[in-house]
């Protein structure tokens, strides 16, 4: 849809619930037969108790979330009406308008309401409405009559319904292609491209797909997470990665559609719904038919020093979008064991996974959409690390039997000895296969050196292919020793995770983060970046997109 055109009336399509009800063709996360390891570690009642604790931990945060919005959420709502353009100096229009509304102190009514008001005042398109709103003395406008207020809401609900129908129609196209072509058997092989230039990325992504990759992640330019706007257009310059823009998403997804058809196998695309623009990225990704997004309830707080209020509010809205549009999220617990010691901090991964799941479920995500993160990061100088890693990964599989799970390769202890590094990665490949990971980020032998070269990806895909073939069926062949190293490790990590969940349930999640209980990193409620973009919802707050996302849209 073009923002310069009049908004189209609802075509009467009622697509809203279609995707989230059925789910797309089930892709990653082939359910592993866990009989061989279940209950050796922990009882069902204990897992249920962990879930209950996580639910109680997230409850007060959800209360806070429901009373607040952010500049990024309001910009996302505007993007839904096709306002994806940028003004002079590349400033996105949605930033210009939301900043104007925020400065005038009227954003607490919701950006959609203001757009509706301008349309009711004679603007003939969303773009025209933006121009009128920027020019108007918003602070001095008389409040509308109750009747007019009702008319604004009615208009915007209708327009929102039409826009969401269009969004879902696009996601259905994605799912139809996925169903038609089919996907590889789990674990899906996930590799990254990161040239900085979207057109070079396309070439690398196609080559990776030809070599056997199932998921392409376009790594973002370093520090994009700290930008309080989404850059505009196709980009060819980036540091350590390529800017996430809606146009870049479109270019890559179209190239992968073409490549998928050629190869007769659906190739997934993922990007990063993290940082200060979680929900805007989620929207742009859904619109451009991406399949997955890295999206974590706490990652931005801990590893990017983004304000925790901002992150909690933003993650909810972004996950609501993922839930509706059938995007699979990947959580970032692997990061905990790169900053903290992987042996000592293994339990924080598991505790955080339960918390991420609880936040995800409350945002409407289904099990098949939860790519719960974990990593192979124990110091390889220690004895028995393969057994310990296997125990940890089996534990996560046991706790989240219906989630795809996302396995991350070693990074922290990687070395410039690429031959050793390749062998090290293969150990992680074995654990990924054994424990039925849905999504497997393949380790690169040059991890310690540079963003992957084409040959690095080729060698990793070849190695993983061999391991998947060779270890097929391994999980069904072994019954673990109840008192062995693997089961013992799983029980120990789970026990410690329970203790942490109990502690966090008592102290509260925000204070626990303040005490560096996750990733060895302490953050305060009012510290970090982006707090100025958080605001309380006003008495008359209106967000028709959220109404649909939460399934409480009044029937027209």
């Amino acid at each position, binding site marked *: 849809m073009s923002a310069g055109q009049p908004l189209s009336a609802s075509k009467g399509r009622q697509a809203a619930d279609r995707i989230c009800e059925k789910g797309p063709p089930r892709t990653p996360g082939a359910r592993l037969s866990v009989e061989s390891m279940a209950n050796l570690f922990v009882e069902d009642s204990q897992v249920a108790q962990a879930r209950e604790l996580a639910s109680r931990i997230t409850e007060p945060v959800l209360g806070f979330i429901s009373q607040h919005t952010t500049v990024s959420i309001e910009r996302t709502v505007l993007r839904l009406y096709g306002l994806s353009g940028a003004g002079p100096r590349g400033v996105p229009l949605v930033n210009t308008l939301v900043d104007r509304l925020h400065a005038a102190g009227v954003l607490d009514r919701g950006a959609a309401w203001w757009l509706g008001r301008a349309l009711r005042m004679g603007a003939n398109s969303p773009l025209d409405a933006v121009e009128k709103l920027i020019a108007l003395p918003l602070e001095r406008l008389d409040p509308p009559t109750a009747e007019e207020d009702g008319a604004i809401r009615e208009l915007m609900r209708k327009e929102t319904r039409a826009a969401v129908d269009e969004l879902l129609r696009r996601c259905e196209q994605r799912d139809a292609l996925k169903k038609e072509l089919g996907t590889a058997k789990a674990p899906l092989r996930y590799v990254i491209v990161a040239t*900085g230039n979207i057109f070079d990325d396309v070439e690398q992504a*196609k*080559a*990776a797909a*030809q*070599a056997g990759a199932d998921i392409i992640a376009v790594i973002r330019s*370093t*520090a994009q*997470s*700290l930008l309080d706007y989404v850059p505009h257009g196709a980009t060819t310059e980036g*540091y*350590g990665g390529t800017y996430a823009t809606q146009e870049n998403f479109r270019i890559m997804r179209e190239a992968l559609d073409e490549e998928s058809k050629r190869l007769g196998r659906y190739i997934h695309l993922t990007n990063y719904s993290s940082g200060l623009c979680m929900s805007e990225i989620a929207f742009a990704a859904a619109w451009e038919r991406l399949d997955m997004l890295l999206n974590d309830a706490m990652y931005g707080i801990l*590893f*990017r*020093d983004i304000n925790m209020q901002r992150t909690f509010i933003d993650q909810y809205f972004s996950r609501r979008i993922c839930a509706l549009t059938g995007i699979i999220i990947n959580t970032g617990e692997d990061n905990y064991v*790169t*900053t*903290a*010691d992987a042996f000592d901090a293994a339990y924080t991964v598991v505790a955080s996974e339960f918390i991420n799941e609880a936040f995800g479920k409350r945002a409407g995500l289904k099990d098949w959409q939860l790519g719960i993160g974990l990593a192979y990061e124990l*110091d390889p*100088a220690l004895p028995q690390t393969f057994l310990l890693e296997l125990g940890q990964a089996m534990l996560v599989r046991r706790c989240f039997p219906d989630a795809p799970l996302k396995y991350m390769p070693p990074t*922290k202890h990687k070395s*410039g000895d690429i031959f050793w590094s390749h062998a090290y990665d293969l150990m992680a490949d074995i654990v990924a296969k054994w424990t039925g990971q849905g999504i497997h980020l393949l380790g690169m032998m040059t991890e*310690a*050196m*540079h*963003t992957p*070269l*084409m*040959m690095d990806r*080729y*060698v990793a895909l*070849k190695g993983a292919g061999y391991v998947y073939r060779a270890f097929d069926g391994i999980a069904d062949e072994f019954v673990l020793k109840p008192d062995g190293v693997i089961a013992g490790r799983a029980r120990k990590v789970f026990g410690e995770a329970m203790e942490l969940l109990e502690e966090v349930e008592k102290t509260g999640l925000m204070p626990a983060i303040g005490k560096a209980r996750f990733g*060895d990193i302490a953050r305060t409620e009012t510290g970090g970046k982006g707090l100025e973009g958080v605001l309380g919802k006003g008495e008359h707050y209106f967000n028709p997109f959220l109404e649909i996302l939460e399934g409480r849209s009044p029937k027209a």
Partner: protein
Amino acid sequence: MSETKAKQIIRPYGDRMDDGIVQTAFVLPVPPSEKAKEAARLFMKKMGFVDAKVATMERAAENYSFFVVYGRSSHSIDYGEIDVPEVIIKKMGRVQLNEWIGKTIGRRLVVLGACTGTDSHTVGIDAIMNMKGFDGDFGLERYPMFDARNLGAQVPNEELIAKAKAANADAILVSQIVTQRDVHLDNSRDFIQKAKDAGIYGKTILLLGGPRIDHKLALELGFEAGFGPGSKASDVANYIAHAVAEKAK
């Protein structure tokens, strides 16, 4: 100096002295074929290899071939002629060093560190500064005689310098991990310029570290020393303590 050094001619060692054997891996942007294999051999020849042996040619993608090729190099190096400065560290253990600082300098040493610029990777600076350290070598925070403050990642150069100045820091550690398009070099030069502008250059000990950093590069960029891969917190601690003592003389 150089005239005192004897000639020492060396070549890569594969199976026998002076055989010059080198293993290479690369991709050529053409599909695998006998012609592609010949291209790989010719490419090796142009690089000065004799007896290039293509160990494997594989289809890395439709239009790309992956090669592993062995060759014998016709080149040699006079080892005696090479002049590379190395960080000279008189190394003491953690306990011993703390006692030594107490006796020799008589106060805690203030060290600020960060991964500066747009780089978001804390792994290097964490390994050196955080309590835990790396590979069993405890970080500077574990040294009672160091007041070590790790500011984390994505810290602007000016902010690190301003904070170091305010804290009257003895040393500043700059970590640079991301090297795409040489951003680490640009940022390091920017740091040195800002240190000069702030008037701390030549006073505060300025150290650079990262996976693609070596001592020679750090010196060229204007730092006092550089710490590359494999450097430990104990190396940095010893260097700083001795440099501070030296400056006090």
